[in-house]
């Protein structure tokens, strides 16, 4: 069995679906596109592919290849069942990479780019990092090579997973019935891109939503609350270079003011929003604040209804 070169068809798939979505959004009026934002997102996507062509992909390939030398299983054949198992294993590794990318600023500095648009459409799906290889995020997939999956197979299923994740970046599609139980869907992924406190730190899945359900990070989209897309501190720029580097610049500024190794560690590897004095908000702090405000309003409603009953 030979693995197909899906990368070659990816661009056609992306362009075709973006055109279809743009026209559908214009006709149906559901979802949004903005010219400057679209230009910025697509330029980020091209920049990402330039970085990959300039050596980023080779780094990943050699990293996987090096670990593969020490594999546990000598020969895993390139067969449909092996590809399927590799896909599920890669999706599991992706879940942990993605979760870490939200919980640790080192990885967030690269991943934040993907969340920096306040729009949620197929062009925003291509708003990808230029610095992913710098963070060495491919480490999350090294165990697959250690098990014995060939690097070509790991790269193939990774591309297939990315391709799957493309089409779920849309507001056009509502809920998909029983598919929502197993698969990551537009609805689940809208929650992931939402900055509403109730939606923070949720739905990290790539293709299979089961990982979020197993590890307690699943939150369904509520019909009462539409996700508000973007990041906690949205950017006042469409400049692709600033979009690509803004969090790294933030880290550099923080490190320049750090007064101890503990602070250096916190700024680099703490959660995004971490500060030594707690003067900034991390997503869990925002969520806690929201939860206590919800609890307080529920309590006051209860007191009010008790008083009404007494009357």
């Amino acid at each position: 069995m030979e693995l197909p070169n899906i990368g070659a068809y990816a661009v056609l798939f992306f362009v075709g679906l973006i055109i279809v979505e743009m026209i559908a959004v214009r006709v149906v009026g559901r979802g949004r596109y903005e010219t400057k934002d679209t230009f910025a997102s697509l330029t980020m996507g091209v920049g990402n592919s330039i970085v990959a062509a300039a050596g980023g992909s080779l780094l990943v390939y050699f990293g996987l290849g090096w670990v593969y030398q020490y594999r546990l299983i000598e020969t895993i054949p390139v067969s449909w069942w092996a590809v399927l198992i590799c896909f599920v294993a890669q999706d599991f590794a992706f879940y942990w990479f993605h979760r870490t990318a939200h919980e640790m600023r080192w990885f967030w500095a690269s991943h934040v780019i993907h969340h920096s648009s306040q729009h949620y459409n197929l062009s925003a799906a291509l708003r990808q990092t230029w610095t992913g290889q710098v963070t060495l995020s491919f480490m999350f997939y090294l165990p697959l090579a250690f098990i014995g999956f060939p690097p070509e197979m790991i790269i193939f299923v990774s591309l297939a997973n990315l391709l799957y994740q493309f089409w779920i970046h849309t507001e056009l599609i509502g809920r998909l019935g029983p598919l929502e139980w197993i698969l990551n869907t537009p609805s689940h992924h809208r929650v992931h891109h939402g900055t509403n406190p109730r939606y923070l730190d949720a739905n990290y899945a790539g293709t299979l939503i089961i990982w979020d359900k197993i590890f307690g990070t699943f939150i369904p989209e509520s019909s009462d609350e539409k996700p508000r897309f973007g990041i906690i501190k949205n950017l006042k720029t469409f400049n692709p270079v600033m979009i690509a580097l803004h969090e790294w610049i933030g880290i550099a500024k923080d490190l320049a003011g750090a007064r101890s190794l503990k602070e250096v560690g916190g700024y680099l590897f703490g959660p995004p929003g971490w500060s030594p004095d707690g003067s900034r908000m991390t997503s869990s702090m925002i969520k806690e604040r929201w939860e206590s405000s919800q609890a307080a309003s529920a309590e006051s409603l209860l007191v009010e209804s008790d008083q009404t009953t007494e009357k």
Partner: protein
Amino acid sequence: VTSDILISQALAFLVVLVLGGLCWILFGRKNIVLDKMTATQQLWFDEPDFQPSHWLMDDAGSAAIAVNDSEEIALVSTIGQNYVTRRLPAGAVVTHDGAQLIISLPDHTFRKIAIKASSEADAGTWAKRLSGKTPTIVREN
């Protein structure tokens, strides 16, 4: 191989131009206008602890300054068809040029905000009011 890569990247940029052009044809390049109600909603979402009591709204609807009862300052600005909010950070510089109030922030993701006040005197009053309000971050040792 290098020329193949260059050609494919050039084609990719061409695709960006085509898709961006299509987006412009379908959706235009309109910028959103900020009114007080929207600015209040944005603040309520981004800074729920901040209850604005006074506003300075830009005449052109591109930005707003909010002040609460504790004389803390928050800024709301448009960016294309969306909004961005910030608390006035330490180290912000407030100046005015005629009726134009200009706030430069030490924030590389939100560098500047310009708001046209109703008059030069009004802008001067606001500049004076805001100049003393750039908070100092207190850090615990």
